[in-house]
């Protein structure tokens, strides 16, 4: 009995080690498959962007191309007006981010710190706005933008991004709640005005929220297709995304050129993602998990 007991734990340990090993292996296999699935369409497009049309027809899609053949990229840059798209997207991002950061933080601060007539109603309306489906409301917003005379100008998307991005109010409110009210009070005693409290104390303390929202907003605007497509049909006002749409309809079937354009348009947001990943994760999680 004693001898048997002495052997048993060892055997068990051995068995356990083996199952741990197998389960670790299974995990890497699962993650490996996911990695392949994620990269497959990207890789095929990347390879095609370096190939000539006959090569695309003849080669297996996953056969690596000659990576020095930049011909397709040259065509996209010279004929695709990609740089106009970059410029407009960048302009839209910078203006919208600044406007949204100020409006969002000011709204959240005021509604969180002061109770006044209608404050609850206004807060409720901001939350109701979040439920309204995005795409279909444009049916009613479109005539309004027309009648305001901002249709086909860069103002149209700027106004819409400022007015309809209510998620930022939600995220700012979470952060404002965490800032202790005693900070406001002691500043008040030191003779700080209400405006001073916001601009000198609260707004700087909201910097983590602002940086998170800046990155998320930038990615959202660069990736947005619908608003620029609907409100800025003019060729001069193409964003990166609508430039790609244009390019695609003008050169249907020219996969080598379209692939190069796809890769170019993909790159900015992917680079931002790789640099600011932590901020993006934090913002996505904060914006999503709410009661």
């Amino acid at each position, binding site marked *: 009995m004693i001898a048997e007991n002495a052997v048993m734990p060892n055997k068990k340990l051995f068995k356990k080690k083996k199952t741990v090993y197998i389960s*670790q292996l299974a*995990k890497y296999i699962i*993650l490996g498959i*996911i990695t392949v699935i*994620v*990269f497959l*369409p990207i890789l*095929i497009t990347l390879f*095609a962007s370096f190939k000539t049309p006959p090569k695309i*027809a003849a080669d297996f*899609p996953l056969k690596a191309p000659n990576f020095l053949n930049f011909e397709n990229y040259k065509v996209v840059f010279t004929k695709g007006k990609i740089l106009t798209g970059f410029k407009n997207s960048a302009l839209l991002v910078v203006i919208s981010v600044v406007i949204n950061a100020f*409006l969002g933080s000011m*709204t959240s601060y*005021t509604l969180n710190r*002061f109770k006044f007539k209608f404050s609850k109603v206004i807060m409720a*309306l901001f939350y109701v*706005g979040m*439920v*309204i*489906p*995005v*795409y*279909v*409301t*444009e*049916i*009613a917003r479109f*005539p309004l933008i027309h009648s305001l005379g901002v249709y086909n100008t860069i103002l149209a998307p700027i*106004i*819409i991004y*400022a*007015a*309809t991005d*209510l998620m930022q109010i939600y995220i700012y409110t979470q952060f404002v709640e965490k800032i202790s009210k005693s900070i406001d009070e002691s500043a008040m005693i030191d003779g700080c*005005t*209400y405006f001073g409290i*916001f601009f000198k104390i609260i707004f700087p303390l909201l910097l983590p929220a602002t940086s998170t929202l800046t990155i998320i907003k930038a*990615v959202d605007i660069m*990736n947005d*297709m619908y608003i620029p497509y*609907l409100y800025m049909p003019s060729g001069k006002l193409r964003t990166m995304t609508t430039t*790609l*749409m244009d390019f695609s309809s003008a050169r249907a*079937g020219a*996969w080598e050129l*379209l*692939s190069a354009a*796809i890769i170019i*348009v*993909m790159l900015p*947001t*992917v680079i931002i*993602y*790789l640099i600011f990943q932590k901020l*993006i*994760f934090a913002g*996505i*999680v904060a914006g*999503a*998990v709410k009661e």
Partner: protein
Amino acid sequence: MKTLKFQKNILIFSFLVIPVILLFMFVVYPAVELFYNSLTSWNGISDTKKFIGLENYRRMFFDSPDVWRSLRNNATYFIIHLLFIPLELAIAMVLDSKIRAKDFFKTVVFLPYVINGVAIAYAFSFFYSPYNGALNEILRALGMEWAIQNWLSNENIVNYSLVVISLWKFCGFHVILFLAALQSIPRDILEAAVIDGANPIQIYFRIIIPSIVIVIEFLLFHNMRGALQVFDIPFLVTQGGPGYASSTFTLYTIDTAFKYDSFGMASSMGVTLLVLILVLSWFQKKVFRLGRNST
């Protein structure tokens, strides 16, 4: 003290005046307009809107089989995404466990969600294309000629082909949300359960599932809203075709408005969508509350 109060009121007014005007003009007013327009036969241009009562709704419910076909396509998105939720949770658990290169895999998993949707839609158009498209080429190389399809022009398949794009784009987002919830479970609770002799299945159902119920609720809500509003993938890849085989409710609505200038009809579809989302959200909330009270 009086000046202080005055100063406070000025701040409230000056900080809120622009956001509230924007809210009323571009969110509240369009929503009200949507309701009103849905009762008219407005074409989107003319100055007069002819009031026709509930005629648009009658036509939509009884004379428009394509609307129903589109809505069925939305349901397909919903159901398939729903079936993937357990898998997404499993992947999140793998990412939460002790593995090497965790950060790399996390980055990869979330990558599709960040990539430009238009670029992705076109990349998949190429992937599915019958002319030099990679999918058919890969199937041929694997000796699976029988599986080769016209992925985007076969009526019976096209909607599923598009659902795959949606899965590719959104699953990683769900995994990251699950991961965040899992990481918020205190380690000592898990360790205590292991010491007390709980097996993995018990840990899964008694500790993990209850802790991530909020995320599951959000995902169902997000999935329902997302599935009802699918627009850009069919719009960019197939324009809803062939026929209406891959059309969705939102795509059909947008086409009705901007392609066929029936703003009245499109508005009634918009209102229907809004009501549908509200009712389903309410229903879902009720179910979850019931579930929580019973345990």
